[in-house]
């Protein structure tokens, strides 16, 4: 099932399916790329940022940024 990264639940894992073109280059250097395993490490309340884990590195993304990433979850 596909969903937006922003919609993933706490501790849910998935595979990055699609990243909006403008964002792709910005997050590529941090290891977030299509085909990668991604885990939702934390979600902050009241539309705060999310923290995701890729390759054992934690990255914080604003919720609006997380909406631009599509994830395939099991």
């Amino acid at each position, binding site marked *: 099932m596909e969903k937006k990264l922003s919609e993933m639940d706490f501790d849910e894992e998935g595979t990055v399916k699609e990243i909006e073109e403008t964002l*792709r*280059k*910005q*997050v*590529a250097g*941090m290891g977030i*790329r*299509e085909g990668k395993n991604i885990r939702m*490490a*934390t*979600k*902050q*309340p*009241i*539309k*705060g*940022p999310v*923290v995701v884990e890729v390759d*054992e*590195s*934690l*990255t*914080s*993304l*604003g*919720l*609006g*940024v997380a909406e631009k990433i599509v994830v395939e979850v099991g």
Partner: protein
Amino acid sequence: MPLSVDERWNLIEKISKQTVEFGARKHTLKDAIAELTVKPLTGIPVAIAVLYGIWSFFVDFAGTLFTDGFMVRLFDEHWLPFLQNAFHNNLDNWAYRLFIDAGHIENGVLVASDNCLEAFGVLTSGFFVPFGVVLWAVLAFYLMFALLEDVGYLPRLAVLVDTVLHKIGLHGYAIVPTFLSLGCNVPGVTATRALETRKQRFLMITLLSVFVPCGAQIGIMQDLVPELMGWIFLTLAIGYLGFGFILNKIVPGKSPEIIMDVPPYRMPMMKNIVSKLWVRTSRFLLVAVPFVLLGCLIVGLMYLTGAMDWLATVLGPFLMSWFGVPEETVSPLIAGFLRKDLAVGMLGGLMEQGIMTTFQVFTSVVLLCIYFPCLATFALMLKEENWKEFLGSIASLVAMVLVYGGLIHLVGIMLEVA
């Protein structure tokens, strides 16, 4: 030929497959802590504990141990009496009043001061404020900041506060300039350079210069009115968030969302911390000390020439009716243009003479925080912002001081404490 993002990653994966071997991955305690401190349910209590720890250290180390335990005694019991005796308590001499002891009126008679806050000479208050109080406060603060920075805690704090700060047009990352400003506004304003858009920088600089008191000021406030500190911080925080929210709506421009690496924790290195502490503290002294001395001199001259009395008469009625503070606060407000710590020190002198109610003390201290950034910060704002932004900052500053100062007075009247 540059590769596309996908081509580059494909190449890296190919290289990595041939050269890197990932052994069994074990989750360590460090990994667990790394995550727990950024999760809201566990992270927020930890953040509060950390901030409270910093505050306690600040109060105990700087306030109780160095200032009260050592410096106050050194300055009030030795340095001041030494100078007073050496120059025969010559209150009739203008140079004596300017450099050693301005004295104060008690029952209609000019009498000698018994502490370095009231004396207000260049050689007494001028040295007591920066070296007796402020240096220790700033040192304690920068030590804590360098530790948090080197351990890698700041990015986690940034994530936790991003929720709130994004609503006022800033990043969680804005916690760094805000935090630095609590030491001294000058490096705080400089740190806004890391923010992305001009709008974010403008918002941050304006809010910093108005609502974030510097370590110097906090140190001396804690020394004078420890019982009011909670209320003062609450009032400033409400102002920071409230006016931030309004400015974010008014100011045009973009507030991009956060994309930030959250690094693992590390052991801080002593050498790194010491060198940071040295650089930051010495820079602070270079900025602060000349201004404090100059401030003492100017305020002293204004008293001697009668300019201060004249200003007090002219501005007094406005201060009394709008903000509800007595005309005597004119002199600290003038000194505050140069140095806030010096100004709060002068308020301390007024308090000891017993001419202000507690609420008036509270209002004056808050007013001193917000009414004008100190000269050093002001000069830096001129440098960092373009003309339009600078005028915008000043206009917002004036509006915020009038509205917020008036509002505090109003609340005071309604609570019947003003």
